[in-house]
């Protein structure tokens, strides 16, 4: 795992939801998927992944089920629930709004002031 920029606080939940929205994944798979979809730019500290997963499951945003992994081993797979899907949509919209606002603010030139 490379030295990637730290995750912004509060974004881990969103990334997990996004990762499992594409396809049911086990914990290690989620870690790899986040790296992959962020173009290897983001890496999740392994210590905070599982507490986050348990919290999201506790909140009913994701559901867990035991299944078989690629190499035929027993693994716990997480899927997005309907509530989770709504939450992801809302958080994505929120994030985009915030990101574009910050982007606009940071892109301001002296002329615009």
């Amino acid at each position: 795992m490379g030295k990637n920029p730290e995750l912004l606080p509060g974004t881990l939940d969103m990334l997990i939801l996004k990762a499992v929205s594409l396809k049911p994944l086990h914990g290690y798979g989620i870690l790899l998927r986040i790296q992959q979809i962020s173009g290897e730019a983001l890496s999740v500290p392994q210590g905070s992944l599982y507490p986050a997963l348990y919290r999201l499951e506790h909140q009913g945003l994701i559901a867990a089920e035991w299944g078989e992994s690629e190499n035929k081993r027993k693994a716990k797979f997480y899927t997005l629930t309907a509530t989770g899907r709504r939450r992801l949509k809302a958080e994505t919209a929120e994030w985009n709004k915030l990101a574009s606002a910050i982007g606009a603010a940071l892109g301001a030139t002296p002329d615009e002031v």
Partner: protein
Amino acid sequence: MWSRLRSLAGMLFRRDRFESEMRDEVRFHIEARAEDLARTGLSPANAMRQARMEFGTEDAIKDDCRQSRGVRWLDEISNDLRYALRLMAKTPGFTAAAILSLALGIGANTAIFSLMDAVLLRTVPVESPRDLYFIGHGKGVRPGYNSNYPLFAQYRSIDGVFSGITAYSPTAFKVSSNAGLENATGLWVNGSFHDVLGVPMALGRGFSGESDQPTPNPTAVISDAFWSRRFGRAPDVLDRTLIIDGRAVPIVGVTAPEFTGMVPGTNPDITLPIAVRAIAEPDYLTMHDTWTDLTIVARLKPGVSVARALAPVDLALQQYMAADENSWIKKNNPDAFAVATLDPAARGSGRLRSQYETALKVLMGMVAMVLLIASVNVANLLLVRSAARAREVAIRLCVGGARSRLVRQFLTESLLLALCGGVLGTFIAIWGTAGIMRIFNSVETPLLLEVSPNTRIFAFTMAVSLLTGIAFGLLPALRSTRIDLTPALKDAPVALSGRRWSMSHLLVGTQVALSIVVLVVAALLVRSLLNLRTLDAGFEGGNLLLVTVDTAGTAVAPDARLPIYLALLDRLRAAPGVRSVSGSKSTPIHTSGDGRALVMPPEVPDTFEARGAFANPITPEYFDTLGIRLLRGRLLTDRDTATSPRVAVVNQTMAKYIGGDHDPIGMTFAFRGEPKDLIEIVGVVQDTHQMNLREAPPRTVYTPLAQADSIPSYFQVEIRTAQDPAAMITSVRQMIRSVSGDLVMRYVRTMDQQINASLVRERLLATLSAAFALLALVLSAIGLYGVMSYTVTRRSREIGIRMALGAARGQVLGQVMSQTFAIAIAGTVVGIVTAWMTAKTLSTFVFGLSERDPATLAGVAVALLAISMIAGLFPARRAATLDPVRAIKAE
């Protein structure tokens, strides 16, 4: 929300599965990562190690996961609980002592609270009781609720503020049964009583909107208790008819078991409409000048304030009082009817509350102090034990244990102790209240109080237990986690405080002070009871049997009463073991007689108050049977008949009042409103206490029963026996029945029982306060003993050194004893001062001594000091007999 509950429930009930799944999941993660790493060329062993390192501290992460599920606190609590239970099991003596003293303290509180709940807090179980108000009257005095029917009718015509208004008065009925006439408690009520109050019914219907006018078709409602007692809860009770006071009345309803009327402490068997009373007493509905115990209760309309309702009510009272028939009240007793009042009726009427309110508060204060003493004991024990655990605490703090976590653990332990005490205390309270109720029920009209535990009582016990647990646990918890780590970790003697005086000593001093207060109160109350008991009541109380017979509502006509009564007296006089028999309207320590207004001799100023005296018509043997001494003149005799000149004997108080310094013999008076000859005073007898032992003897005139203008329907019979009067009760009952089937025996009791009955409140206070004082004393002595023992243990090394340096055993003994004495004397002084300052609370209860009686205060102080010294003697002797060598080597 639902998913959280489900996941929490999963955690609670399938905990093992959660843990094993979490283990599996983490293992899978690490192995999968290791496989990936191995693919980059690492050896399998190195790959595994690398994967583990990347993952981080497995246990910490698992703990975070648990916390994510919101169950870490649960784990911690269950750990704390397990730890506390282990500790408790390891020191069974300590645990038993702590739980027992807390249980006694909490139990006493719960028992007294149960009484308070029944007497002061419980609302009558009717619909919205808080909308109900009594309509009373009186200015600047406790409002009176006695009214009469015309006034009720006046109030009933008020528009707009009440959604309903009704009235009731307690009474007694005679019900015919196979075994003859039977007494039943009863209630006369207005025809919409059950409807206005919203009385819950078990069967049938209550009265709703019946007329109060005399009716040929009366109906009765009975109570659940009467339904059980008389009909064995027969389901067809509504088809039955009762013969009440000789009149057949069909039953139309049974009230629900929780409803026991509007007067706490009573439970009327039979409720009849006023319409029935109006048949027997035709002028009842129109009688203006008699104030009966008719109590009026009204339900406020929603949104109407008391102030708004009061205006039309007061107007109605003023209109009523303005009528000519009532002018005499206005003239003679203006304050009592000056203004109308509306008082909350949610807790019912009756004297029970005013009689017991202060007494119960005094007892509640005492049990609170007892609980405080018990708590202090446990706090001290915990402090001592926390000293023993100081090393463990220091280690845990050193390795980074959070102090809050440790405090929580200590608190868990104390709360657990308190809750165990609470549970045991609840049982003690149930047993205790049963005992208290025996005091209440030792009288002819027992108080029917509902003291069985209810949710309010359980909530109280729970709250008290929790508060106690926190109160006695917090201090040791805070102190024992704030220790100096260095000496604690070394094997040096661990002391929470190196000073000679510690928190424990202060706490024990407080215990002594609290005990003093409780002891003073108990001593005053017990001495008051003894003073009342040994009071010369003016008659001889031993071997005296009292019987009340009753002919009201029977076939016996008023003018046929006297021959039946006299026949009864003759029958009893002939019985073996009977020395003397008499009859009267009243007996001492029971009633005073008829309050009569007198036309006084011209020497006595004629004012309204001055006219009052109590008239007690008696048979001539009365004074002899009761042992009342003649002081002057002569007693009444058989020669004072209906046709002979009218005579009377007066008591000392009356003699002094009527004659002043002169001899009253030969003076004459008359009963007001009685167009008969004047009555001549022929003798003066000793004063006797009449209503109870506390009240001063009233002005009394004794007249011959033979000369009475009417013979009472209630008749008292006094029997002086040769042996134990209680042994005669059965035969007396048979003799009464043999004289006439219409003679109903209401009560039979010995004079001792009657005196006991008049002292219910005093006995309750004396018995309970004595028990609480004993408890306080024992607990404090144990506390003092425990703390001094610990002090000696803690200082045994120092004591050993001093002895090695030549201190005499006597000096060591003296030192420990002087410390004990210092604590005891400080506590005693504070306690005596507190008792002195709070003494006024007891002024209504003490009798025959001051509530600041110096002898009592001094006696209690000396007794407590003596007991403190005895408690301190054991540890002091242990200190004095220490082997210096071993004491020094021990550490």
